[in-house]
């Protein structure tokens, strides 16, 4: 009966068609725009083919943005996974069922917040004079000023900490749930061998969870691409260009500074190509 139904066609085709249109039209158009020299404030435009791309590679800020984006990706993904696994294991080890539920609820809260809200919350917290997060430093040093968001060396980490606050805590919950799905026998066996607690996790449980943890990391890598909200609110890419990621720079070029839509689009196209290729390859490996 299932075989001969028209259901798969009626259910799938319209949806897929709409998804295709909604995704392909902008992506193809992004490429078209990138080959022109459109500007927001000018009516006319002409085809300049690859000159936007050529300009990009001699643009100091673009190269800087590539580097900042790579740094951002590495810092946030690694820190998120470390926090998630650390807290997940701790909850698994020392918290009873009720306490676990309580922590899980708490740890989900930050990720639910709009990124904009999270960014504001921490921007206030990092305020050098009135911030709650910089208060301990003022207290200990007797009123010295610590301004993490305006120091080139610390700004990126200060913004990344917000990302980790949102995702690391959330992933800790998932790591805990993953640990809970494991069969108890191997853990018991290791315990009988007098293995230490951390050894059990390092050599038994976490290797058993390798596949889901890698998937988790994959998800985080994708989500880390969305750094814009945090950076836009907290630093605007500053100080200087110390936190200017690719999407921030593309936005600045397209809107804030000069309205060079085509130039911004060329950047977006390069980003798109890079991410689609990287993630497709990663995905195939994760699946394999």
């Amino acid at each position, binding site marked *: 009966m299932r075989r001969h139904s028209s259901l798969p066609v009626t259910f799938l085709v319209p949806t897929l068609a709409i998804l295709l249109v909604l995704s392909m039209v902008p992506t193809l158009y992004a490429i078209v725009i990138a080959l022109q020299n459109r500007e927001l404030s000018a009516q006319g435009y002409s085809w300049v083919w690859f000159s936007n791309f050529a300009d990009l590679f001699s643009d100091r800020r673009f190269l800087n943005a590539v580097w900042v984006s790579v740094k951002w990706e590495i810092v946030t993904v690694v820190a998120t996974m470390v926090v998630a696994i650390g807290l997940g294991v701790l909850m698994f080890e020392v918290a009873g069922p009720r306490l676990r539920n309580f922590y899980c609820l708490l740890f989900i809260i930050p990720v639910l917040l709009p990124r904009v809200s999270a960014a504001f919350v921490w921007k206030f917290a990092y305020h050098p004079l009135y911030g709650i997060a910089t208060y301990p430093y003022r207290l200990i040093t007797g009123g010295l*000023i610590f301004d993490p968001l305006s120091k080139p060396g610390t700004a990126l980490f200060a913004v990344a900490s917000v990302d980790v606050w949102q995702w690391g805590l959330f992933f800790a919950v998932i790591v805990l749930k993953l640990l809970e799905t494991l069969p108890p026998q191997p853990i018991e066996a290791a315990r009988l061998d007098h293995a230490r607690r951390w050894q059990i996790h390092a050599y038994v449980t976490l290797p058993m969870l390798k596949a889901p943890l890698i998937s988790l990391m994959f998800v985080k890598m994708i989500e880390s691409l969305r750094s814009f909200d945090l950076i836009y609110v907290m630093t605007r890419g500053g*100080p200087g260009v110390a936190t200017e990621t690719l999407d921030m720079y593309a936005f600045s070029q397209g809107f804030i500074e000069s309205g060079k839509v085509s130039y911004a689009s060329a950047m977006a196209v390069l980003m798109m190509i890079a991410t689609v290729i990287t993630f497709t390859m990663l995905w195939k490996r994760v699946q394999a």
Partner: protein
Amino acid sequence: MKSYRLAASLGAAFVLTASVSTAALAQAPVCSAPVKVLAQPRDGLTLLEDSKDEFKKLSGASFQIDYLNENDRRAKSRADASTVGNYNVYYVDEANVALFASSGWIVPLTDYYPADYDYADFDPGRQKVATYDGKVWFAPLTGGGDLMVYRKDVLEAAGIQPPKTLDELIADVPKLTNADKGMYGIALRGARGSGANVWRWMPFFKAYGGKWFDGDKPAFNSEAAVKATETYLKLFKDSAPGTQTGSWDESTGAFLSGQVAILVESTPLSGMAVDPKTSQVVGKVGFLPPPSPLPGGGYGHGLAIGTKANADDAAKKCAGLFIAWATSKENEKRRLDAHQFGELNRTSVLSSKEFADIYGADLGQALAETGKVTAVNFWQDPRWPDLGDRWGIILEELVTGTRTDIKGGLNELEAYANDLVKKK
């Protein structure tokens, strides 16, 4: 006796409201839809929102003001005006009026500014800033030049006379810094933007003889710019915390909360400094013109009529009426009553007795003095925001130390300027 007076004032009030309402009834309402305004936060505009009903009575519609900080307001109004143009009224300033006017994003104001609101009453300096290409484009909300504002008590304690020259200022500032006690010699602007860090930097550039363009050729890549930048960076070593990535708000905020000894800032600061509502240093403040040869940065902000959102003449009239009402004598009087020094623009108000009573003769004299050294420091061209913002980013990098090569930054800016010129 008492009751008679009450009755009389009631009667007067009645006559007044009656005349207002008959005037409103006499003609069809000027506005058919709420006026949408894109502005930057001003105490004067916030105050205006308390009188929404008055405008409704006058025009038949309400108004809505969206606020963005200065840099964002510039970026957003430009993006909006160049695309959909959904705002009826734009907040424009000395730096972008040329761009807005020459791009046709705003229309000349005079045709839609009702005569009885008396445009000629505005301070002549501000009228000049609002004029581009021989036409008047906006009605001023604020404006002025620069003043050196300093802490009498701090300078006295250090045995330092208020600096009269730039060299004295450079020598005095480090001596006044006492970071342990939370006192800093100066406050500058570090945040990017043609109206932010570049704005504070330009007087130094001009003081050292700098020049933006020679005809179509960029001329700013010069000894003057290098020297100005070096001086700026040197002074920044003693600038209050938070100003490295801050602008007007941060540096004036630091001064008003008592952490800064001297700063040269736009004139509204002087009014804020003597007002107990905004200042913790009332009574300890002195004013002088900027140390010579620093010129003051002449500026003016105001409201202009958008082109696209006001498709027909009626809509433009409505926007014009809003602007006229918002900058009217009555509303300016309200701002004076609320001690909003920076929001006053009309000669009739600035020369009134109430003004002198509130702000004293000292300030009046300093303002008159500084008027003489107020100058236009930026490149008067539609492309100025582009160029200025570009330099703002490089300057911010220099200030925060992510970049140290001044000459390299100027070379980069010159290449950018050449591109700008070529495109036109």
